[in-house]
């Protein structure tokens, strides 16, 4: 038995290494720094690690090679996913500073743990986006998910946080198991765990084999679950709403990016020979998602929940890029992922600020009257909503344009129409938010909770859309026993405000001058060009 160490291209792996080192340093730093300085120390380390990883990704931009015996693939697609994940993590860190998930009132701060988990998830995403081996794929998916399960539940004082964590864990593990079984079947059919090997295996007459196709179905289910495609979407609104808002922001953006990258790589590369079989199925899923997400979001009062449903719809849009199974489609998908990240982060940043400034939490009432009181917050949220709705002069419009172009090009014009119809429906709820911001007066502070409401009273199962959260007794448990007094407005949120304004600005910038982002995205598509029909 001989052991030959595999060739390791450290340059190619450098972003991963930077992140890994960052995780360890964060944990160590958290232990060593005193409680008063923990936040600063840990954040600096995390941001430095993220900056380093991002820098290394950019440094490696343009390289296309297999890493470590083909387990990973270094190319622009993977790097793009990694960059989006890193960017969102970097923006989420300031959001988390005063969040109960990391700073529970009356307890020792947990910035170290929080940020270590965050970085681990980013690491998982980076690996996932680059994975081209079933085992690496699965393990990095778990590396992505497990920290998120923890983070979702980390606001221990809120029942809804724990609920979201456990729900996410149960359904997520179910999804993972489904995916895993699918991977097993695909492995069984093709006899390889490498994407290239699978491609060759399936290509040699197995593209119509029931075993492989069932594997595709199972794996597709698992992946669709991760990116919140209906009908595997149901965890999304609940988890988004229950999780601490910074975690939601991260989850909404980064998970989707990384999972889409691997979705693309797995389906276009490994399962490419079976494209004719999975294409229609995914097309239908995309359409269903668009419908379900947009319709579900109508009338939601919780902004996070609304964005959760919106995320389902947006995933549906993006899936169209995958369905197109063309370079154009992947370009469009990557473009949209980046745009989606920008738009969502801006929105979540604003929600985080308003959660602290008002007594309304993430309810839509929290943003009412903001246009008058806090224009610097109102504009990012407005731009974000308009961009998500796909209105012109925003990156969202360009993204939809790109996606529809890909759909039409792939003879899936009806999917383009589905995107259009979905967008129409979506306007109703995105604009509702903007209307609240600009056209409604500020909401009165929430009335104090009537005492003695039994925790488990349970409202009527029918949810009336006009019902405000204060009328739903269950939410009584959502709030910390002693809610922190609303923070004074102003500079204390600067660390959040600046990212919000920057991402919103970028959303508009790339809506007007999209070429840099288009070029960037087209590299990603080019990376897989040789595998595409």
């Amino acid at each position: 038995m001989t052991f030959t160490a595999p060739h390791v291209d450290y340059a190619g792996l450098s972003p991963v290494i930077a992140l890994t080192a960052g995780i360890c340093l964060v944990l160590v730093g958290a232990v060593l720094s005193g409680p008063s300085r923990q936040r600063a120390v840990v954040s600096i380390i995390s941001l430095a690690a993220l900056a380093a990883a991002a820098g290394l990704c950019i440094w490696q931009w343009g390289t296309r090679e297999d890493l470590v015996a083909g387990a990973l693939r270094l190319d622009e697609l993977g790097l793009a996913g990694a960059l989006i994940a890193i960017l969102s993590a970097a923006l989420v860190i300031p959001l988390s500073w005063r969040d109960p998930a990391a700073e529970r009132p009356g307890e020792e701060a947990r910035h170290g743990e929080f940020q270590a988990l965050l970085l681990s998830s980013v690491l998982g995403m980076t690996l996932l986006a680059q994975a081209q081996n079933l085992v690496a794929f699965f393990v990095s998916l778990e590396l992505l998910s497990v920290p998120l399960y923890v983070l979702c539940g980390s606001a221990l004082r809120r029942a809804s946080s724990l609920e979201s964590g456990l729900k996410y864990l149960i359904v997520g593990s179910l999804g993972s198991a489904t995916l895993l079984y699918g991977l097993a079947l695909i492995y069984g059919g093709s006899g390889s765990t490498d994407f290239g090997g699978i491609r060759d295996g399936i290509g040699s007459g197995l593209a119509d084999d029931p075993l492989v196709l069932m594997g595709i179905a199972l794996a597709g289910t698992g992946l669709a679950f991760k990116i919140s495609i209906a009908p595997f979407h149901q965890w999304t609104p609940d988890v988004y709403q229950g999780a601490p808002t910074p975690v939601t922001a991260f989850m909404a953006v980064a998970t989707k990016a990384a999972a889409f990258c691997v979705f693309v790589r797995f389906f276009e590369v490994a399962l490419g020979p079976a494209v004719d079989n999975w294409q229609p199925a995914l097309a239908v899923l995309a359409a269903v998602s668009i419908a379900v997400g947009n319709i579900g979001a109508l009338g939601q009062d919780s902004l996070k929940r609304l964005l959760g449903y919106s995320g389902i719809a947006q995933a549906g849009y993006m899936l169209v890029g995958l369905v197109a199974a063309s370079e154009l489609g992947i370009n469009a998908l990557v473009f949209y992922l980046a745009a989606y990240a920008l738009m969502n982060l801006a929105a979540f940043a604003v929600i985080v600020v308003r959660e602290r400034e008002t007594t309304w939490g993430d309810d839509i009432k929290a943003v009412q009257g903001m246009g008058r009181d806090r224009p610097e917050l109102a504009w990012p949220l407005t731009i974000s909503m308009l961009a998500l709705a796909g209105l012109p002069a925003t990156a969202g419009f360009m993204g939809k344009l790109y996606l529809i172009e890909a759909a039409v090009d792939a003879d899936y014009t009806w999917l383009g129409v589905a995107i259009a119809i979905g967008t129409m429906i979506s306007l109703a709820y995105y604009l509702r938010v903007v209307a609240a911001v600009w056209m409604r007066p500020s909401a009165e502070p929430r009335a104090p909770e009537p005492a003695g409401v039994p925790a488990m009273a349970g409202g009527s199962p029918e949810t009336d859309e006009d019902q405000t959260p204060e009328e739903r007794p269950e939410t009584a448990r959502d709030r910390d026993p002693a809610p922190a007094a609303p923070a004074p407005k102003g500079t204390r949120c600067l660390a959040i405000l600046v990212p919000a304004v920057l991402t919103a600005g970028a959303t508009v910038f790339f809506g007007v001058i999209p070429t840099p982002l288009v070029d960037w995205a087209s590299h990603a598509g080019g990376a897989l060009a040789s595998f595409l029909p």
Partner: protein
Amino acid sequence: MIQILLWLPVAVGLLCFVVPRRAVPALASAGSLVVLGRAIVSVAEFHTGQPGLQQTVNESWIPDLGVRYQLGVDGISVFLVLLTALLWAGATAFSAFRVPERRRIYFFMLGLAETAALGAFLAQDLLLFVLFFDLMLVPFWFLIGTFGGENRIAATTKMIVYTLVGSLLMLVAAIATAVLASDQVGHLSFSLADLRAHTLSTGSQYWIFCFFAAAFLIKMPAVLVHGWLPDAYRAAPLPVLALLSGVLSKVGAYGFLRVALPLYPQATAHFQEAILVIGVASVLYGSVMAFTQTDVRLIAGYSSIAQLGFITIGIFSLRPEGADGAVLQMVNHGLVVAPVFLIVALLWERAGSEDLGRLGGLAMRAPVLATLFLVVTLATLAMPGSANFIGEFYILIGLFQAKIVYALVAGIGVVLAAYYAIRLFQRTMHNRKPEVIDSREIGPLDAAVLIPLVGCIVALALYPGLILTRADPAAADKVDAVNAGSPPSAPPAAPAPSLTSSAAAR
């Protein structure tokens, strides 16, 4: 440079956030006047008699997506650009005299809207057109939703969703056009010139045309898809409504001429009758509704439906006369309907009501206002001698030669227009004056806005040929695209071949 024209409004709008609060209205008004000046220069530099584009800009924008930044004017758009600049100057100034509370955002949104409207008229790239077409809605949504009256949020949201129903389908259709044509063009291109040179197969044209038609008809709006209009008109602030009705509705009709006819000639010929039916129905329905309403805004609103119906049938007569008339009528209607809404604003300030039942007798103490309104009213009803008459005359004579029956039916609309327009004038200006009305003459500032607008109506009445001669080459070119594109036995479904045969000759 035509670029200045396009981008100055939004630049001024952005500047509104910077300058001191008190200077905002003046800045916005000055900006809109400069834009107007630039638009006049554009018209002055326009060379008559050429069907092609002038004052063009052609830059690369998003090469990967085949989108170019292409601007230009021809005889069709140059006057619509001027109309846009004129009405915006009027509405901006009018608003500046009664400054809204959140003025920065108000004037910013006005500027953004102007840029979008101008962009739609200037764009020579299909996608750029769609982009501006959609963009336009956003500022209007804001303006109505933030500064409007009762029920404004629901109304404005209904408007934007309804309108975008068409627009988004149009986006798909536009993309499909470029993608499907890319085989022939050789590369992905949204350039109208490229797409026109390589029209699609008939089957593709049909559904794409339907999507475009849906967008345009909703925007105008045509009857049955005008569901957004009553609420939005009731809620909108009046200067904004003047623009909404005066300019935005034209974009739909303009789109037919700019996009649908040249790009989808076979489909246009195929759906000619269907659109004509819708157009004639709009004329009749809008007119009937206009004379039963008592809300002044709705009278003007439904009359817009009727007027836009005329414009539609003019275009879809597929005759150069009809198209010329449609272009002229677009400008006319904009010139007419905007002052109506500004006058309604003045009525509201005097009477506190916009209901005909509570208005009346204003003419006695406000003869100048009454006279201005009278001129506008007469133009609205297309009094012979007004440019509106020439517009309708051209439209109907075009249609008359193409499809005589539709022309005859549409003639009823002319009579109804006389009734509802005169009724509007009488019931506001004449008859007894209710006690509560404070009958005042128009103020000098408002007069400074209204008199130039009315002056334009009069000037155009004296020489409508100004527009007709310039629009004719371009409009005829669009129509010829259809007539050349469709097979010689052009309308196979035409029920009366004996009547259409003589129409074929031009």
